[in-house]
């Protein structure tokens, strides 16, 4: 026996179908207006876990880029400070060589010594360069300067590291002794010696110039390392930025609504809904009553 169909069952069925159609439309409209196809975990549990992971990656990437930028700031400042120091040392070497020349009188040498003293002050200023309020060459010590007026190192041998990729951290500082020589033989002592010998004992200047050359060589080595690390950090930053872009695209793919597809679906759903409505209007109206007498 086929099912008996009654007015109530027809209206119940059509109401249920219209409801279903309407709720589909609501879902699509929700997606369109929010621009997201993932509103809650049950919409797609796997999509949700990807979205959560990608969001975490994005946030972490943002932070890694900030770390790298900070590291670049440290390294860039160190680079220019070291370059300036090399210039100063070159000038001192010139002066020392000139003072060694036998044609110089004591007064001339005293004048040169005064200039060397001034250059030493200048070099001390460079060695006390700060980055964001911290002395660049003082390691991790909580000191206000890296070298005091007497040229004594105030910092420590601590390394300032920046995490630029997960698991990769780069040392972004140069400690005073590494750049300017070990205590007692550092460039400031050499400069004091040069000024002293210019005034009192020019014969010692040959040894001083040799010591100065050694400091200059160390500085150049350090400068090369700083340059290399600068490039390393920069490469890692651009890698992180690339990865962030990829993650952003992936997140959009998982989370954002596919506009053309959703709009098409919505249109189709609208058509289906209208068809259902007009069919309902036709089905519910007539009964035998309309045809009796």
């Amino acid at each position, binding site marked *: 026996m086929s099912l008996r169909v009654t*007015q109530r069952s027809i209206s119940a069925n059509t109401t249920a179908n219209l409801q279903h159609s309407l709720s589909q439309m609501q879902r699509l409209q929700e997606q369109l207006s929010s621009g997201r196809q993932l509103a809650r975990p049950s919409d797609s549990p796997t999509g949700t876990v990807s979205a*959560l992971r990608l969001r975490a990656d994005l946030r972490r990437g*943002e932070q890694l880029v900030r770390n790298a930028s900070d590291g670049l700031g440290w390294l860039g400042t160190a680079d220019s400070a070291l370059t300036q120091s090399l210039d100063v040392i070159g000038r001192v070497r010139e002066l020392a060589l000139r003072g060694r020349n036998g044609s110089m009188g004591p007064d001339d040498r005293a004048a040169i010594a005064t200039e060397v003293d001034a250059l030493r002050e200048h070099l001390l200023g460079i060695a006390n360069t700060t980055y964001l309020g911290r002395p660049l060459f003082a390691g991790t010590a909580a000191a206000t300067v890296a070298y005091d007026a007497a040229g004594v190192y105030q910092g420590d041998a601590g390394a300032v590291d920046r995490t630029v990729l997960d698991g990769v951290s780069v040392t972004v500082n140069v400690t005073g002794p590494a750049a300017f020589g070990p205590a007692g033989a550092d460039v400031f002592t050499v400069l004091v010696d040069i000024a002293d010998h210019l005034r009192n004992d020019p014969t010692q200047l040959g040894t001083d110039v040799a010591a100065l050359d050694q400091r200059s060589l160390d500085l150049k080595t350090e400068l090369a390392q700083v340059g290399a690390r600068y490039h390393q950090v920069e490469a890692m930053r651009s890698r992180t930025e690339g990865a962030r872009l990829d993650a952003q695209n992936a997140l959009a793919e998982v989370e954002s609504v596919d506009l053309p597809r959703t709009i098409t679906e919505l249109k189709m759903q609208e058509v289906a809904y209208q068809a259902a409505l007009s069919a309902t209007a036709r089905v519910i109206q007539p009964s035998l009553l309309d045809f009796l007498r």
Partner: protein
Amino acid sequence: MGTFDGLNIGLSALYAQRRAIEVAGQNIANVNTEGYSRQRSEMVAESGPVVPALFSRYEGTGLGVRSVEVERMRDQFLEARAHREHGADAYLGQVQVTMDRIELAYAEPSDTGLASQLADFWAGWDDVGLSPTDPAARSQLLERATTLTSTFQQLDQALADLGAASVEQLTAAIQEVNAIAGRIADLNGNIRSATAAGLNANDLIDQRDLLAMQLAEHVGATVRPGEGGSLDVYVGGMALVRSTSVEQLTVEVGAGPAFAARVAWVDDGLTATVGGRAQGLLETNNDIVPAQRAELLAVAQRVHDDVNAIHVTGFDQSGAAGVPFFQMGPTGITVNPLVAGDPTRIAASSSPGAIDGSVAQQLAAQDGPDGLYREMVVRLGVAAQTTNRRVEVQDAIVQQLDAARESEAGVNIDEEMTNLVSFQHAYSAAARFVTVVDDLLETLIGMV
């Protein structure tokens, strides 16, 4: 055969057809009444005496028609099945509502959910790592840590509220169940006496069926026909209504912190095995919510453990060894007041006195709790999705079943109109028959 028998035949036909027209009228009147079962007037031909007697032999055609009873068209097997499926549907619907609420509480994936707050928290450590002496970075980190802990607390509270609300709903539902059970028992009494007096109790039976369906949805009740046309209602195999006697149900809530609830019989205190919406509400309070809270607590505990383990290896701004950053209390995870009150107590440095952020950087790279939380959200999503699918399937089953019930018991106007027309014609014809018999009698009398 008697002379006036013809008139009686006509009269019986007039009565029977009029009765049938009235039944059709009643059907049409109730075409939109919920729970109404269509009725049909059953007619039988009245035969003459069939037992031959010695001096009397009946030679007539019969004695007309008799309307025996008004039959109610409803399939009791379909009804029993409908009770089961409606109960299962109500149960799943309730679980779906619960899952939906929980998903809404977590609000994932989004820029505001717990996952983003965790990410913000870790990023805060990185900022402290970049500039360990910057008080702004330290205060910002504390701010984010406090936001994180209060989110943990809010989520836990939202879950606890969900459990409490479901117990309240359950209590209300059980009260309603008791009231309905009382009305069914009353109806049982009315129907029994009406049936005993030979009266038509169809409309009362319809009302009773409607109430039984409500019980099926509330507590997954099943019914069985009892004695004297009464309907017995069972919950978990125990009688809630037997004829005119009623048992009462009550909700008992256990002690905190679990607050496990159960539905019990007032009479003997035994646990009633309920189905339907009540089962969904019980499951919400006793299983789903506690499980979710435990998972959330595990994430908070992991944050607490991971951060503290690293934080105590560090040294704060004044060079003192790091204290635990978080603490677990009765209200869940909170920032250690020592640290919360003094940002310099954040231990970012790996050696005392140094301006170093390596411990903070180490903390920034953590994502153990995030992974745990992600797993938890996915489990929730899968559970909610499964429930949604089951609800869809169950809805379809219920819809089909209701269609079948409606097909059996529903009123079709076309059918009633057809019946009406045919009964009307039958009535006219019977009236015409009476006129003919009248004419015959007149002819007979005129002959005298």
